């Protein structure tokens, strides 16, 4: 595929991720921390996030399926997930975590429960979009092109 087409697809995808609120400014901060000495930084951090949050979400789901739900433990998991999603700019995930914690603070169990499915869904969406973004980056670099810089 033509490099400029790849670059356009990349820019369009990245722009849409910000427009849809899947990513926020913190992601741009991470991109700015990346340079020619550390070209894989964003990929590394996001990969750590995939591992970490995948595990946390599985724990959340299995904890909710138990006879006696340990809400304190669940809140601790969500707190962790909220922190790491904020650190990489995963805005929608962060936002659902925020909503969960608001329900938790009000002892609204049903409200808490209703957040789990959306949380999983946002994670799945986030993962697939970011994987597509990284794949495009690899293709652009392999074709000898450079990654377009975004302007906000």
């Amino acid at each position, binding site marked *: 595929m033509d490099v400029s087409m790849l670059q356009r697809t990349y820019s369009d995808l990245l722009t849409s991720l910000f427009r849809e609120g899947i990513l926020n400014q913190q992601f741009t*901060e991470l991109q700015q*921390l990346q340079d020619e000495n550390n070209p894989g930084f964003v990929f590394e951090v996001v990969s750590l996030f995939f591992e970490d949050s995948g595990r946390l979400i599985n724990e959340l789901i299995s904890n909710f399926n138990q006879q006696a739900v340990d809400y304190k433990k669940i809140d601790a998991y969500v707190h962790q997930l909220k*922190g*790491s999603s904020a650190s990489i700019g995963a805005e929608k995930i962060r936002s659902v975590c925020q909503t969960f914690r608001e329900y938790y603070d009000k002892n609204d169990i049903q409200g808490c429960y209703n957040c789990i499915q959306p949380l999983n869904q946002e994670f799945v969406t986030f993962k697939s979009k970011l994987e597509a973004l990284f794949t495009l980056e690899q293709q652009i670099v392999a074709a000898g092109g450079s990654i377009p810089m975004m302007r906000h």
Partner: protein
Amino acid sequence: MGSGDCELHVLAVDDSSVDRAVIARILRNSKYRVTAVDSAERALEVLEMEPNVNMIITDYCMPEMNGYELLRRVKGSRDLREIPVVIMSSEYIPNRITRCMEEGAEDFLIKPVRQSDVSRLCGRLRN
């Protein structure tokens, strides 16, 4: 030495692998040498073995020993008390901030931490 360079050794403490990677990158971009550990307990081990730590930057919320406890241990130790300790937290809780500053914290940063937060710190510590 170029302008803005701090050739100092920072010990970064955070139980989150994501946050550890981010803070380490930010610090290295500011030319600090970084040792990153995942617990306060591990941090104390490093401090015992490694005499040349110029700053500690630690998360507040960690399982087992938290950042406040680490701060107290450092400030309560004759060997370690001169080392500036910066606390990071994702939650803005004024009481928490006050307690840490009263215990001798150098600064309190709200997460997510950005390059600009650390550059400001570096500028102050060099003077």
